[in-house]
């Protein structure tokens, strides 16, 4: 049987490239998007194969404001993964977006080159890294608002 004759099983997200690709593509253009359920309108991070609220498989994307609250953060000073080609120290945080979803992110240092000015629960805003950085590591970056 020729490949073309194989019935295509369609109508659902089939792998993590399909699942994560649009998020990374948006980041590369300086935009922050989250998944949105086409049936119940739930905003979803991290994107799922089915809506966690209504279990629908009909899922799209929506741009968010990028405003949110810093739940917590850390500055890793020793022992970055060898697969992660960034020199320590670097800042990592968890941001709860005003729209509801939350995500792990990188934190920009302040003008003094440190992360000393961050505190839990403070306001932060999305401040995209450049496309070259996103091509290497598709993470959302935030800064103090």
């Amino acid at each position, binding site marked *: 049987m020729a490949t073309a004759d194989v019935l295509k099983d369609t109508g659902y997200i089939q792998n993590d490239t399909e699942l994560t690709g649009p998020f990374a593509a948006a980041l590369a253009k300086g935009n922050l998007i989250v998944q949105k359920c086409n049936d119940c309108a739930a905003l979803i*991070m991290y994107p799922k194969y089915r809506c966690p609220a209504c279990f629908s498989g009909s899922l799209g994307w929506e741009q968010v404001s990028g405003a949110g609250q810093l739940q917590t953060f850390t500055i890793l000073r020793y022992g970055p993964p060898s697969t992660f080609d960034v020199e320590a120290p670097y800042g990592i945080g968890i941001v709860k977006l005003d729209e509801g979803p939350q995500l792990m992110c990188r934190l920009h240092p302040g003008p003094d080159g440190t992360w000393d000015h961050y505190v839990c629960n403070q306001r932060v805003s999305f401040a995209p890294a450049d496309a070259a950085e996103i091509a290497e590591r598709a993470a959302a970056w935030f800064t103090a608002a």
Partner: protein
Amino acid sequence: MSEIWTPPYPEPGSANDAAFIGIGEIPSGVYRERGFMAQIVEASARAIKDAQLSHTDIDQIVLIPCLHGIPDQADLIFSRVAEELGLHGKVKSSVMVHSGGSTSDNATRMAAGLIASGQARNVLVVYSERWGSADLQDMIDMLSVNGIPREWEAPTGLQFNAIGGLITQRYMHQSGSSAEEMAAICVALRDWANLNPNAMYYAKKLTIEKIVNSKMISDPIHAFECPFLADGAGAFVMTSATEAAKKQDAWVRIGGSGGCVSHYAAGQDADLGVLGWVEAAKEAYEAASWGPEDADLGEVYDSYAAVLAIALEGLQISSKGEAAREFHKGRFSPGGEFPLNTNGGLLSAGHTGVGGGTALLIEGIRQLLHRGDDRQVPNARRCIVGGTGGSYMDAQIMMLERATR
């Protein structure tokens, strides 16, 4: 809305009530000369002897996984342990159970279920880990690849000390705990380890000053607040109350259990300063019909100080926000009001991977069997055991009770 389901736990004294009857352990630390399988066989032999059984009495093996390498893990999966113990052709099955740091609780539930349903008579549960002898960068990489969402969180450079930092930052902000109060948690655990000859840091003291003056690894965690990776092995034997009463004067039963999986990705937990402990405790205390005020001691997963503080507050052993300050006042130290992690915990007995939680469970059984030597909690009758795995993805609670013939 789903209906509330109250599980029918076996009554104390019922024929098939699961019973812990023996434990075995070898010292934790860096022991390069000790092989993976040698550790398993030795720990198993000690547990079987402690249970007053012979090896051929074991009809079911439940294996706690190792994390140091796939080949050794494959040996677990493919029944090498049965053959090494001379039990091939004799045991019904040899199976590995895995949920990271909470495996001990889940393996216990599974073993208890097999016993209660008459599908196993004498179950051997064993772990062996060689983290202490493994290459450090390999282990850092292993702890930054496995259990961290590769699509979503790996691109931020997250690894496990950073997760510890995120949780500690959140806990200190919510509770107002100082660096010294957090350090006191590690010091209390070290004081317990100084009473345990099998602990990695049996012979080394630790002070608050030494901790707060050590270098910052992942803010606000200092070097001496990170778990030390260790080699180690331990085992225990479970059977039914009927079988236990034939040879034992005392054994340990499970009064109830509770559990809650609060997340997979650390970035997705509703509150990293709370985790799943509140939900799990509600279930466990209802099942056991007793709670923290009735417990004589606790053995609760502690790979970072804040992880333990958050668990103690969720378990209501401490009041909200006060756990670190209670450590600082000596409440959980040897001689204190509430004995906790009496083997020294993962932070001072040694972090033996998935085995670290198992070591705490074994210590709880040891205390209730009154085999605690210099660190025995006088007349210990009830112990709360808490475990958590991965990025503190779950909270698992076992309510252990001493039972006598």
